[in-house]
């Protein structure tokens, strides 16, 4: 297979250069830390419950770019597809903490869990309280403890940002973010692999005319390989998996995210949206909000994920709350 052409410099410098790009685009709203590849909001409100997100790089804008008012207070950037080390997470934790403790929100991957846990232990030695909500929205794995964090992370970070902005305590913020996480489900599909930017090699192989439903954002195997099918049939397959998993029921109110994994067109996602809404209407599930775009990518992987989050009044209010960041701003 021919190597993917990338507009990069020395692969070793990818993460540092992405961080510089984000800082410059923030026009003073973000700063980078000296001693760790991490971004921190400038002017974090004193006494605020802090929100820290992070994980491997290469999924931009997740997680690094979702730092801003109403979103995360800090993000820590690991190497491509690899967890950041605990000392980097710890440095960002100290920078974000405003005396009320720090909520960690990140995806459920073995490396991330170990490194963030170690950072939380380091923070505890400094007297900084840390709580963790693991994003594990991917329904492609049976056991909930094995479930990975994928596209639904956007809604959970959005809600966590709003919750931490108004919460009086870390307990309060943790409880509402746990509720958001428990009500979020995502299923993805890939029609073409992305590549590892350092090497240009694809992260997995798909046969000619093949797609994989449930494939992970690093190429982890999904639930089934199928021949490419029309958008309506694929959408129905994916929505069924989501609805049956939670399960979402008649009368539920949801927000729906159609996330572009990197190289799928808005054209295709709008076609999917049309069918998804039709099916959900038939099932009596009200879609109160729709987001369509590239929120959590895997390089130039072609494919998308569908996320549904069941909303109650509190989650509906938090998801609509104002926020600002380079990839996502709402007034």
């Amino acid at each position, binding site marked *: 297979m021919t190597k993917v052409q990338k507009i990069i410099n020395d692969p070793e410098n990818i993460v540092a250069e992405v961080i510089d790009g984000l800082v410059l685009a923030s026009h003073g709203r973000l700063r980078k830390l000296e001693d760790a590849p991490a971004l921190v909001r400038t002017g974090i409100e004193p006494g605020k419950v802090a929100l820290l997100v992070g994980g491997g790089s290469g999924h931009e804008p997740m997680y690094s770019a979702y730092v801003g008012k109403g979103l995360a207070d800090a993000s820590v950037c690991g190497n491509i597809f*690899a967890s*950041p*080390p605990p000392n980097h997470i710890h440095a960002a934790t100290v920078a974000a903490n405003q005396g009320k403790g720090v909520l960690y929100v990140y995806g459920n991957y073995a490396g991330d869990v*170990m*490194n963030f846990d*170690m950072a939380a232990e380091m923070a505890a030695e400094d007297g900084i309280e840390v709580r963790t909500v693991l994003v594990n929205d991917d329904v492609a794995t049976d056991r909930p403890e*094995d479930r990975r964090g994928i596209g639904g992370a956007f809604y959970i970070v959005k809600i966590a940002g709003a919750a931490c902005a108004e919460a009086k305590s870390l307990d309060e913020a943790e409880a509402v973010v746990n509720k958001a996480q428990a009500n979020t489900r995502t299923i993805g599909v890939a029609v073409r692999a992305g590549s*590892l930017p350092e090497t240009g090699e694809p992260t997995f192989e798909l046969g000619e005319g093949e797609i994989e439903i449930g494939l992970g954002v690093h190429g982890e195997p999904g639930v089934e390989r199928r021949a490419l099918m029309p958008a309506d049939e694929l959408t129905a397959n994916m929505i069924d998996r989501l609805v049956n998993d939670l399960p979402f029921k008649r009368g539920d109110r949801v927000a729906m995210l159609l996330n572009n994994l990197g190289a799928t067109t808005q054209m295709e996602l709008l076609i999917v949206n049309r069918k998804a809404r039709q099916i959900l209407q038939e099932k009596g599930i009200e879609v109160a909000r729709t987001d369509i775009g590239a929120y959590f990518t895997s390089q130039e992987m072609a494919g998308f994920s569908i996320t549904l989050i069941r909303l109650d009044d509190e989650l509906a209010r938090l998801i609509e709350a104002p926020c600002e960041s380079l990839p996502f701003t709402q007034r």
Partner: protein
Amino acid sequence: MSDRLTVDQTKAALVAAADAIIASTERLTKADQAIGDGDHGLGMARGMKAAKEALDKKPAATVGDLFKTVGMAIVSTSGGASGAVFGTLFTGAGKVLTADVLDAESFATALLEGQKAVQARGKAEPGHKTMLDALAPAAEAARANAAAGLPAAARAAAKAAAEGAERTKDMVAQFGRARTLGDRALGHPDPGAISVTIILDAFATAAGG
């Protein structure tokens, strides 16, 4: 070689282990590409380079100080799951090495403590196709051969690790990113288990075993 290593000799053995990992970067990368995302070799090499620098700079009163220095360097520079696991191994082993010499007895105890620390951190068990499948038999072999002296105990540990790494070929991963590959990882050894073998083999050679 004598039956025990001084602090300086232990440092030299750790540097030899670090060099062996750095020299094996490509082999580890290939092994990880088969069942993971291919970053294990680069991460381990980055950590071991940092470990060598730290060993050079940081004074050590006990053997354990050396192991902790290596562990901290790996944790803070390797990143990913490898950094957490191997950093925890060295740090955990270092905690019980409170003397200024390393003998067979303390080597065996340190391997077991390192293993316990890794299990507590990662929640994996032997049999899950991880580095523990090389480390656990190595710790056991070191204990069983402790009476034979450090060179023999270290060599027995390295041999047991190699056999354990070989057995991971037949295991289906239960942990880490390779877990999600399921049966597709069958026939391939776990890259972390290979790294344990490389480290123990170089350490044993430096210890005269």
